[in-house]
Every structure is written in C-alpha cells, then in structure tokens.
C-alpha cells in the first residue's frame, strides 16, 4: 500500500472486507476501539438532547468523525500528549477519560476540571493521558504542540505529540508556524488534519486552492499522507507509522484524514443551510461505525445481539454520567478569581471580596437567560 498525498489509503472496504489485512490488534483491543466509537456516538446524542432541552448550553457534534478520532488515538501511548481540537471526544474516551469527567465539563459544574470557566467541550485532562486544555481560537495549539515536543526531544524522551485540527485550521497562522518550526526542528509531532469538508459553513474549496491538505506538508519538508478518515484501520495505520517515525527521531508527519461531519459545526449551527443534501447521503453510506461493525462481524467478533447489548450498555453509562453531572452544583464564587495567577494578587483579591460583600448585602446575581450564540 503506497501512502500518497492524493490517493487516500483505505483498508476496510465499505462491505467490511479487508483483503487479508492484519490489523495486529487483539480481540479486546478491537472491541475497545468499537466501544470508544459507540461512546462518542452516545455522548454526542445525549449532549444534543441536553442542549435541545436547555440543560447544557452548547455541544460539538462528532458523528461521522469517530474512526479518525479513535484510529489516531489508538496509535498513541498513555505517555504521549494530545493537543486536541474541540471535535475530538473519541480521543479522550478511547484513552479512558471517564465520561463523567467530560460531563462535568459539559455542565460547567463544581467537579469540572476547568472549574466551569470554559464553554462546554473545552476539556482539559492530565490523566490518563495529557489531553491539553482546549481553547476556542483556531490553530493556536499547533505551535504549542511543537514546543512541548521540542522540550521532550531536548530531554531525550521518546514522547510523541499529536496536534489535531480541522480543514479550516490549515488556514491559521498557527498551522504555518507550527509546521514550519516542526520541520526545522524535526519535532516528534503528528499533525492530524481532520478534513471534514466544512469549516462551519465554508467548503474546502473556499479554504485552499491546493490539491488537498496533505500536500501542504511538502513545503515544510514534512511527509504528508492522505487517508480515508472513516476507516479506523487506515487512520490507525498511517498514524502509527507517523508515531513510530516521530518516536525514533524521524520528525513530524502531516496526515489528512478525509471524513465528514454528519452534524452541524456546533449545536448552534444548522448544516442543512449550506451542506448540499447529497453530501449527507454520500457520507451516510460511508458511516465509520457501520463499516467497522461489518468488519467485526465478518471477523466473527460481533453479532447483532452483542452489538445491541454493547450499545445499550454504553448509552446507559453516558446517561448515568449526564444525570450525575447534572446533580453537581456550580463552582464556588471564589473560582472566578482564582487561577488567574499562581497566587491571587491584591487587586483581584479585593475585587473578589467586593463581590462577596455585595452578595451578602444585596443578594446573589441572577444568571441571565442568554443562550449561545443568542
């Protein structure tokens, strides 16, 4: 199988056949990948319901991208770092971030690692894998991944750093500076461009005039490869090759995973306003989860009953996480003022004391009924 910048690598055929390809994964590992994909889909569906019923403010649909997320994540060790985009639920779930931890973030409650300071989906985890705090500006994390990788390289560690972003992210300043620095420094980074066809409402042809995104690596002296992003084995294979090369000191790789976002950009977005209906039809037939199920069934690891049982179990797990997270109250008022600096400076402390005093004298502030993005 030749890896190129123009012909996407595919391993799992739409009918689930793999033409004798050996994924070199145990039954438990294969089912773990499958379960992670199910978790993403269940998490997605429940968050959509929570948002539509006004119980959380916002979510990011992941449906259709699961094979890219899980395939790429499966190539990493727990000691590696992920600099995720906001559409990477599967990377966290694959590596065992508890759904409850993620739900705490969706509700912005007192148990949320980010203490309710960020919008939902802006996760931050240091365990069981470094899943670096997500910010909303696009592409800023790409050079950061390179810097973190450079630190590891200077210490002689063999940690690999995966930076994930979308097709729109390739137009950002951070994409250029990140890939350029990584090329010069031969940093142990895997750049994963999840080309899902749309940057909110802008199609790829309005994003770039180049022949795809993988070829952009060439200008930075970085090998580029394009892969069928709805094919778990293909994504895993190219990512693993990139990870092995990075770990051995061979430098970075740019992977373009061609996939499709079956939902909106966010719960505030209606993709039917701009995505031609035939695109949904086209990609629905290439659903990554269904394709992997066909493979597992053909391999004798899954049947309809087992699949149904697993799906129910996963949905129950996510639903329980949502129920539990919803019971947790909001973060304490002091969290508005802490963590700005390692120590709270006097002027911020005074502002906090002023707010606490106001609350004692005039009662608490009332949450507005504002909904993102209005």
């Amino acid at each position, binding site marked *: 199988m030749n890896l190129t910048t123009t012909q996407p690598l595919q391993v799992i055929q739409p009918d689930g056949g793999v033409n004798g390809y050996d994924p070199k994964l145990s039954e438990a590992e294969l089912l773990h990948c499958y379960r992670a994909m199910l978790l993403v889909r269940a998490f997605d569906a429940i968050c959509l319901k929570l948002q539509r019923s006004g119980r959380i403010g916002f979510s990011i649909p992941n449906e259709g991208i699961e094979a890219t997320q899980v395939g790429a994540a499966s190539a990493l060790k727990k000691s590696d*770092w992920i600099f995720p985009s906001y559409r990477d639920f599967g990377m966290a779930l694959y590596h065992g971030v508890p759904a409850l931890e993620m739900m705490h973030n969706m509700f912005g409650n007192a148990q949320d*690692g980010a203490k309710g300071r960020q919008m939902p989906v802006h996760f931050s985890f*240091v365990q069981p894998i470094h899943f*670096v705090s997500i910010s909303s500006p696009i592409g800023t994390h790409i050079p950061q991944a*390179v810097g973190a990788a450079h630190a590891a390289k200077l210490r002689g560690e063999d940690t690999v750093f995966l930076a994930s972003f979308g097709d729109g992210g390739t137009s950002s300043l951070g994409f250029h500076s990140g890939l350029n*620095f990584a090329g010069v420094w031969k940093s142990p980074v895997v750049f994963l461009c999840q080309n899902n066809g749309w940057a909110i409402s802008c199609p790829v042809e309005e994003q770039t005039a180049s022949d795809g995104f993988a070829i952009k690596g060439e200008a930075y002296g970085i090998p580029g490869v394009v892969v069928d992003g709805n094919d778990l084995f293909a994504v895993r294979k190219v990512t693993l090759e990139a990870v092995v090369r990075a770990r051995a000191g061979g430098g970075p790789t740019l992977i373009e995973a061609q996939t499709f976002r079956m939902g909106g950009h966010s719960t505030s977005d209606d993709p039917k306003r701009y995505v031609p209906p035939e695109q949904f039809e086209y990609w629905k037939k290439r659903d990554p989860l269904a394709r992997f199920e066909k493979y597992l069934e053909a391999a004798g690891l899954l049947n309809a009953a087992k699949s149904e049982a697993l799906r129910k179990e996963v949905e129950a797990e996510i639903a329980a996480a949502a129920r539990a997270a919803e019971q947790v109250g909001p973060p304490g008022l002091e969290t508005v003022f802490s963590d*700005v600096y390692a120590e709270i400076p006097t002027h911020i402390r005074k502002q906090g004391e002023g707010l606490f005093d106001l609350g004692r004298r005039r009662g608490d502030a009332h949450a507005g009924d504002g909904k993102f993005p209005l």
Partner: protein
Amino acid sequence: MANLTLLQAINDGLRTAMKDDPSVLVFGEDVGKKGGVFLATENLQRDFGANRCFDTPLSEDGIVGCAIGMAMNGLRPVAEIQFQDFIFPAFDQIVSEAAKLRYRSGGQYTAPLVIRTPYGGGIRGGLYHSQSGEAYFCHTPGLKVVVPSTPHDAKGLLLAAIADPDPVLFLEPKALYRSVKGEVPEGNYKVPLSTLREARAGTQVTVFCYGAMVPVTLKAAEEAAASGIDTRVIDLRTLLPLDEEGVLEHAKSTGRVVVVHEAPRFCGFGAEISALIAEHAIEYMEAPVVRVTGFDTPFPNTLEHHYLPDHRRVLDALERVAHF
C-alpha cells in the same frame, strides 16, 4: 559587584539563570551566533550550547507558541521578540493562550515563560522600532508586565521573572541599554515583582514613571529642586500586577502626582494610575493628576525627540502640579 550597562546586566541575568537552572532556554530571532540584534544574548550559545540558546524561524507567533508548549512541558523558556513592535503576530498566543492557560485548565496546565523584548523610542527607529505597547498587555489578566530601568533591577527582575510560575512580558527600554551603568551584584538575586522603587526621595510631588522615563524624570526633578519643588520619583518596575497600595501611599503622602510614560496617552497606563488615585485617594489630593506622555499619534522618526516626553515637559508638569 560589577559596573554594568543595562544590556550587560540582562546578559548576566540570562547567563545566571541558565547556569542555575538547566530547564532555562533562550531562543528567538538571531539570538544564537549573533547574540541578538542588541547583543543581549551575546555568547550564550557559545557558553551553553545550541540546545540551550538557539535561533528560530522568523515567526513571532511560532516563537511564543512554541515557548508556551515548552513551558507546559517542564521547561523555563525565555523567548526574545526582536522588537516589541513585532510582537503583534504573537498577540493571540500571549493574550488568548499563555495568559489564560492556568485559568481555563483549572491549574492543570501552566505557562511559566518569559518574553523579553526591547521596547520604546530613542534610537531613531521610527514607527516600527520605537513603540511602547505596554497598555495592550496590561489589560490582560494572567499576564505579568515588567519594565526595568536600572542595571541592578534589570538583572534582579529578570531572574524573578524567570523563576515566576506565571507568564511574564519583560519590556527592556532599549534607550537605556547602553546609556545607563550601575553596580550589579554577582550571582542569583531577585528583585521581587510587583514592588515599587523610590528612585528619588521627595515630599511635595510624586512622579510615577518606568523604563526610559525614569532618568528623564530624575533630570526634571533635579531642575525642579532648583526652583524649590521637592520631587519624589517612583519607578513602578512591575506594571501588572501593580503594587496599588504602594502607589496610593505615595500619592496620599504628597497629594500631588504626575505620571510619565512614552506610550500614547489615550487609555495608556497613566490613565490607570490616575483613576486609581481618583477612586481611592481623592480626598488627599491637592491638585489634579497630570499625565506626561507620548502623543496620540504613531511614533515619528526624524522628530522623535519631540514625541518623547523630555525633562522640559516633565518640568512643566511638576510646576503645574506643585503650584496648583
């Protein structure tokens, strides 16, 4: 003790930090072999090797973005931005990322880094080698902003900044790089951040200033003394987080205040000092707070000496405030 220029004190500070802490790295454009366009990093690559002091591609966004990643992963990066005027491609990395990382991750990730950059006028640098952009950054919670004005403070504040757990923007007044000399202790000493320095004792008027405006103000204060105005000069040293209590104490004690900075006036740092005094010390004030600042224009080249506050303008302000 050695008698060093401010530039040599910076070099000494970097050298001391690199010697004491192997996680300290120095990098930026032309900082390696060349030692920086002002030679602040001279011989650091020679003495500490190219893994500790190295050149980067010409990309401020990349320099600061990578510095954040390094800081997240256990290093103490000291990044140089060649001129503060060129920092704006990195504005997003500084303001959206470094300054907010601790807060947005609930303390799980932090960015203890220092961004050193020459700033201010006085070298005939025109619009793009002269600006004083401190106000943009002082509006950013999570960031620290430091400006030394003496060789002693330059080294001590730099060592404190490098040891600090939070991101620090270290603005080096380039007009003072070679024009001031002073005694600089050997070894590692720190001037605590967020502390003021009384550069001149006085009882009648307090001037708050920083960076290259400190010697300008001291000269004006000497001239004012000849006409009987006893001026206290306070070097703010750290603009964010500011020692507000200290500022208020000095303001209350003289009841007359002038603020001097090179940057444009509108929404400049002087406005913050003035508002602070208006809010918390108005009953002590004998005169309005007067600001002496750069003009609300871009920074001119040929006529820069007219743009920059000089001892004449400070003296005018001192007399106005003293005789109000």
